[in-house]
């Protein structure tokens, strides 16, 4: 069952229950009241009758009247009285256990044998309610001693109207309650539907995300819990979208790297296969043989260099093996200088290294490899002077080499991107140096910027967070 149906049903049933309880109490007490009023009315009417009859009998009484006369007189007076009654009650009277008059169709004396008794005004009055002719009748009676004789005076009254008006009241209340319940149900159903409608949007959006539509968001309305949920949901969707995009980017980068690598391997492979085939099948001079062997050797070392750099790049991508610790820059520079000086001397490059006493957070081995890579690039760019300077968090490697064309600067850090492939290869480049540098700097949370002017030189700046 849907939550909005559940909620609406629960609320409506509670509401109906409350209304029913109220109505029941109301009906019971109203019914009780009206029945009591009818009883009281009948009692007082009987009392009035008794009083009237009593006074009439006393006024006409004379001593020495025979029993028969007395009886006839009582009968006469009572009949007179009862026929003159304006109420719709019927009266009966008994003297000495015999009815002198009975205007009703019942036997009141018999009915009242076991009835309730109410005393008041010095007399005991009995009353009860009986069914007669499909209608409820109240029967009231009391024994009264008048002029020495005992007169039982009864009143029988049809009080069905009280009950029928009670029934019609009950019916009216029931109708109103039902109407109220229906109205409540309608209002509740609508408001619950309105309140829960955003959940439907939420569900749709979640399903869309599950199917790969990571851009799906839901509108946030109001400030209730559902709005808060929507906000959280959107935040989650955003995070999912971001992570998926990152994963896709990484996958895409790997794919491109792999494609570039495959392409990159074709040239050395062609040379190696071709020269080995030539050595095997073609009649070559000694000189040609040596040349072929030299080419095979050179191409194989290139593949070896390529695989080494690639391994470094992959190791970095795995994120393992990087230990960033505060290291004095002087320490870094000393170790780099030790590596670079012999190469610089051999190639006739003037190397200048200068730094202050700052300490930077870095992985010294990786940072050394960055500087060595950058020096190597400068050397391949036919630089005569290379300055490696550190001040503050900024390390710069400046050369006076051939420079990088403006449109290539942006792409220069892409794996296997080389401005001049054949020259770069001749110099032993494999096109991964700057990709490595960029990766290492990024892992330090640093910034790499390359400024270059063709024919004048290149300046690579690495900004490390202090």
């Amino acid at each position: 069952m849907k939550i909005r149906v559940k909620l609406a049903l629960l609320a409506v049933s509670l509401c109906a229950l409350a209304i029913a309880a109220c109505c029941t109490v109301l009906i019971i007490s109203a019914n009780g009241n009206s029945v009591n009023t009818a009883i009281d009315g009948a009692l007082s009417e009987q009392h009035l009758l008794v009083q009237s009859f009593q006074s009439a009998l006393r006024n006409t009484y004379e001593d020495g009247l025979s029993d028969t006369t007395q009886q006839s007189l009582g009968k006469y007076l009572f009949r007179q009285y009862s026929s003159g009654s304006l109420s719709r009650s019927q009266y009966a009277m008994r003297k000495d256990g015999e009815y002198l008059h009975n205007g009703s169709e019942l036997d009141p004396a018999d009915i009242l044998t076991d009835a309730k008794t109410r005393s008041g005004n010095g007399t005991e009055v009995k009353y009860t309610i009986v069914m007669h002719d499909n209608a409820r009748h109240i029967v009231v009676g009391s024994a009264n001693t008048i002029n020495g004789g005992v007169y039982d005076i009864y009143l029988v009254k049809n009080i069905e109207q009280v009950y029928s008006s009670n029934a019609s009241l009950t019916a009216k209340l029931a109708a109103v309650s039902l109407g109220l319940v229906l109205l409540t149900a309608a209002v509740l159903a609508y408001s619950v539907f309105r309140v829960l409608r955003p959940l439907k949007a939420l569900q749709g959006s979640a399903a869309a995300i599950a199917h790969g539509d990571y851009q799906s968001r839901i509108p946030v309305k109001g400030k209730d819990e559902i709005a808060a949920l929507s906000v959280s949901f959107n935040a989650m969707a955003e995070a999912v979208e971001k992570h998926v995009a990152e994963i896709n980017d990484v996958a895409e980068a790997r794919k491109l790297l792999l494609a570039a690598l495959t392409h990159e391997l074709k040239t050395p492979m062609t040379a190696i296969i071709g020269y080995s085939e030539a050595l095997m099948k073609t009649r070559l001079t000694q000189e040609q043989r040596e040349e072929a062997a030299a080419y095979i050797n050179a191409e194989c070392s290139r593949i070896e260099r390529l695989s080494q750099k690639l391994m470094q790049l992959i190791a970095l991508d795995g994120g393992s093996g990087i230990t960033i610790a505060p290291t004095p820059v002087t320490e870094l520079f000393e170790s780099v200088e030790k590596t670079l000086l012999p190469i610089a001397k051999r190639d006739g490059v003037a190397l200048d290294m200068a730094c202050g006493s700052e300490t930077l957070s870095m992985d010294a081995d990786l940072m050394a490899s960055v500087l060595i890579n950058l020096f190597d690039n400068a050397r391949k760019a036919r630089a005569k002077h290379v300055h490696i300077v550190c001040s503050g968090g900024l390390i710069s490697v400046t050369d006076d080499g051939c420079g990088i064309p403006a449109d290539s600067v942006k792409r220069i850090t892409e794996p296997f991107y080389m401005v001049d492939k054949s020259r770069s290869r001749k110099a032993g480049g494999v096109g991964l140096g700057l990709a490595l540098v960029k990766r290492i700097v990024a892992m330090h949370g640093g910034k790499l910027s390359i400024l270059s002017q063709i024919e004048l030189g290149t300046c690579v700046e690495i900004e490390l967070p202090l």
Partner: protein
Amino acid sequence: MSRIFVIEDEEAINKLICTSLTVAGYETVPAYDGNEALAKLRDFERFDLALVDIMLPEVDGFALLPHLRERGIPVIYLTAKNDIESKVQGLKSGAEDYIVKPFEILELIVRMDKVLERTGGASKLLRAGDIELRTDERAVYRNGEALPLKPLEFELLTLFIKNKNIALSRERIMAAVWGGDYFGESRTVDVHVAQLRKKTGLTIASLPKIGYRLED
């Protein structure tokens, strides 16, 4: 002798192609980038075929094509890209053929040969030692004297001379001379090679596990 223009920026590969084609009896002219290719195009009066790498610095292979076509030079592209798009682009722009790196030199020679025959750049006179083979006459001369050869022997000799100094496996010889669907014994090749040796007096070396090589 057919003159082949080898335009390839990778020194190792350019040298490899030039060396292999030279020993096989072609004349080669190397160029290492687009600009050099354009300069050499002006220097030389005739080229029978150009082998062009698509990825060249300065002026790339596609840009070179109009200049080569203008001179009526058929082009075979060399490329490391094995995708349909560049293949289509290469052939659409008017190249005769397309060969993907890495390739075998024998494969290259077969393709070049087909293009040269189609475009008329193939030498009609093939030489090896004191043997002269005239493809248009289908005749062989030894020191100017006609040498009668059976059709299969003629085909075999043509194959050997076209791949001079390069070893040919028995399978390759069989496929080229007898046709790809011939399932004969490789002894057949040995018998015919022996016959050819006797008739022409050429040095056809037998290289263990590799095949035969006409040495000249």
